[in-house]
């Protein structure tokens, strides 16, 4: 009898130990935005399903980028999952720093990920990060002001139309600026916008031999058009305006048009925060008739650093957070307008979601951006508003500082382009590209 009890106790202890050993606590580094915060609030669902606990490290985007880069390049192991973007993923995947996500379960349906997103988050055809949400950029405009100006926004406007419409909508006496755009220095701020815009003017960062292209006419045309339009119709001090500054201006009714991230659509149409929520329309980012539009492509995605001790639990989390079921969970708790957009094809086949006013335009914008073929002339890099090479962030930050100095009236377009050319060529030479 004693032996039986002993065996039973031993078995119980083994089972208990096994379940404790199976339940992990994973640490996730992420950014502070509405979708990510919502995910944190719903983590109990993941814990209930798998038994794994989650610890969050939420940081500002630029701090996070520096923090996770330090950790992954030193194999620090501080995080089991990192939130990274389309810029880092192919570079880190090529370096062997990330776990390949090529064995996700059949129920996950990896083929459902939007091709543009899967392409941008892969290296040599292998997916290294699962998109949590994706975005492009598009025009958000005031329907009432457009009507007052006697104009109608085409679904796919040209830059010429946008400049004319901006001038017509500008009403300085009432503090209304025809157009608000990013001018703030930083590769992810003004740098991202001007690079995406330059694609539609036929410009590119590098030729096929990695020579800088700022001495070409398309770049001069891009900057002169931008500065001219913003001087006519932009807000004062636009050289220091980024996403948040323009969002604030638009929500207060001080912008006729704003071309920026598609995720902003949910902010400007939210009546709790926006004074113009009921009069916002959407259109594709403008083009110049050269076959490329000026919208970008971005995704915040979840990736596992190579060497993670909790790879299995981390994969389970990624499958949960980027699944179709998670989208349903958010919709049930917060409504369809708040589900993470731009990651899965099936979301845009869902009639409930397609009733959201900005859903179709977001999808059209994402589909019109191709990170593998973003420029009019052939270029050697992947990426729409960036070139996915490790040196780009540093170079583009410096170049965007020169451009911001033009917006602030501190130097001419020609001076800035000459400096950009020298900065880029010097950096590329030092990095061994030439």
């Amino acid at each position, binding site marked *: 009898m004693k032996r039986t009890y002993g065996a039973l106790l031993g078995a119980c202890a083994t089972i208990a130990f096994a379940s404790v050993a199976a339940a992990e606590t994973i*640490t996730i*580094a992420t*950014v*502070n*935005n*509405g979708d990510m*915060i919502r995910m*944190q*609030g719903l983590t109990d669902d993941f814990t209930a399903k798998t038994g794994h606990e989650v*610890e*969050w*490290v*939420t*940081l*500002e*985007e*630029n*701090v996070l980028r*520096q*923090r996770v880069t*330090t*950790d992954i390049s*030193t*194999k*620090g*192991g*501080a*995080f089991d999952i990192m939130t990274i973007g389309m810029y880092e993923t192919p570079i880190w995947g090529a370096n062997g720093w990330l776990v390949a996500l090529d064995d996700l379960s059949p129920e996950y349906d990896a083929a459902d990920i939007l091709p543009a997103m899967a392409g941008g988050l892969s290296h040599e055809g292998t997916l290294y990060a699962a998109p949590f949400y994706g975005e492009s950029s598009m025009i958000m405009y005031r329907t009432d002001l457009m009507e007052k100006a006697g104009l109608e926004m085409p679904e796919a406007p040209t830059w010429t139309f946008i400049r004319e419409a901006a001038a017509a909508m500008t009403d300085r006496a009432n503090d209304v600026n025809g157009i608000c755009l990013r001018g703030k220095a930083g590769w*992810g*701020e003004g740098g991202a916008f001007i690079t995406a815009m330059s694609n539609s003017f036929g410009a590119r960062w590098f030729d096929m031999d990695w020579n800088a292209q700022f001495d070409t006419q398309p770049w001069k045309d891009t900057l002169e058009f931008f500065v001219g339009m913003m001087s006519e119709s932009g807000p004062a001090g636009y050289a220091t305006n*980024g*996403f*948040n500054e323009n*969002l*604030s201006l638009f*929500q*207060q009714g*001080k912008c006729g048009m704003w071309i920026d*991230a598609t*995720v902003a659509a949910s*902010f400007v149409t939210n009546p*709790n*925060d*926006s*004074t113009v929520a009921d009069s916002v329309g959407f259109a594709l980012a403008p083009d110049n008739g050269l076959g490329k539009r000026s919208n970008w492509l971005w995704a915040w995605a979840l990736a596992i650093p190579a060497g993670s001790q909790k790879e299995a639990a981390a994969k389970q989390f990624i499958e949960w957070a980027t699944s179709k079921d998670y989208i349903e969970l958010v919709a049930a708790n917060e409504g369809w307008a708040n589900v993470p957009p731009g990651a899965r094809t099936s979301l845009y086949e869902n009639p409930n979601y397609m009733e959201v006013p900005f859903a179709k335009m977001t999808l059209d914008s994402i589909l019109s951006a191709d990170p593998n073929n973003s420029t009019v002339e052939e270029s050697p890099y992947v990426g729409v508003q960036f070139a996915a090479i490790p040196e780009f962030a540093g170079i583009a930050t410096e170049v965007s500082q020169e451009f911001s100095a033009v917006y602030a009236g501190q130097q001419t377009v020609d001076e800035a382009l000459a400096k950009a050319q020298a900065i880029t060529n010097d950096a590329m030479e030092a990095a061994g590209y030439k």
Partner: protein
Amino acid sequence: MARAVTTQRKIINTAAAWAVGLAIFFPILWTILTSFKTEAQAIADPPLFLGFDWTLENYSVVMERSDYAKYLWNSIIIAGGSTLLGIIIAVPAAWSMAFVPSKRTKDILMWMLSTKMLPAVGVLYPIYLLFIKLGILDSKIGLVIVLMLINLPIIVWMLYTYFKEIPGEILEAARMDGATLKEEVIYILTPMAIPGIASTILLNVILAWNEAFWTLNLTAAKAAPLTAFIASYSSPEGLFYAKLSAASTMAIAPILILGWFSQKQLVSGLTFGAVK
């Protein structure tokens, strides 16, 4: 004979002092006010000063979303621990430099201070790798050591300056009365330098509390202090100024209260020996 100060001059001086004080305090006041606004009120143009509907919603959201107590506790341990460790090391160091100087004492002091001129990011990778090797990444003990080391030059310099003001004859008298070196430092020197030590402690606690480079880069989920708590509410893509202000107010409140109640000691310590 002291020069008579006219009433008019007094008024001007007082007004000027208040103006400077308010200008310095204004960013903190604005942060506190913004924390009681809605996100829409926080970005209103023209800005709303007092005429808005006050709300505690931001505090409620921050408390619900973050484990404030954990961040606060980590900050207390890291700031307190690094200060205590720094004082224990700096008191004997400053004593030897003040009372038993050598030919190279001034050079050593300058060299110590020069380490503060090194950009922190320049040594991030070596320190990070060292922390991985020692297994102290994302640990309070790791941060206590790092913050103690980066603030040590300031602590030694401050204590050295205070100790220099104490007449060496008093210590000699103690020695003649048979005091050992330990007794001399603990029972004679330290009590005489209490205002200086107190202000050094306070200043170092403030520096450690506000340190945001190492505390963000060497922590993850376990040892993150209030600087990480604030960083989690900052976003370049989304207007969360009111919530960020609430988080900031909660992060600075403890140190603000400490500074407020100890301002007398802080001022007397910082001006210790300034006027003979």
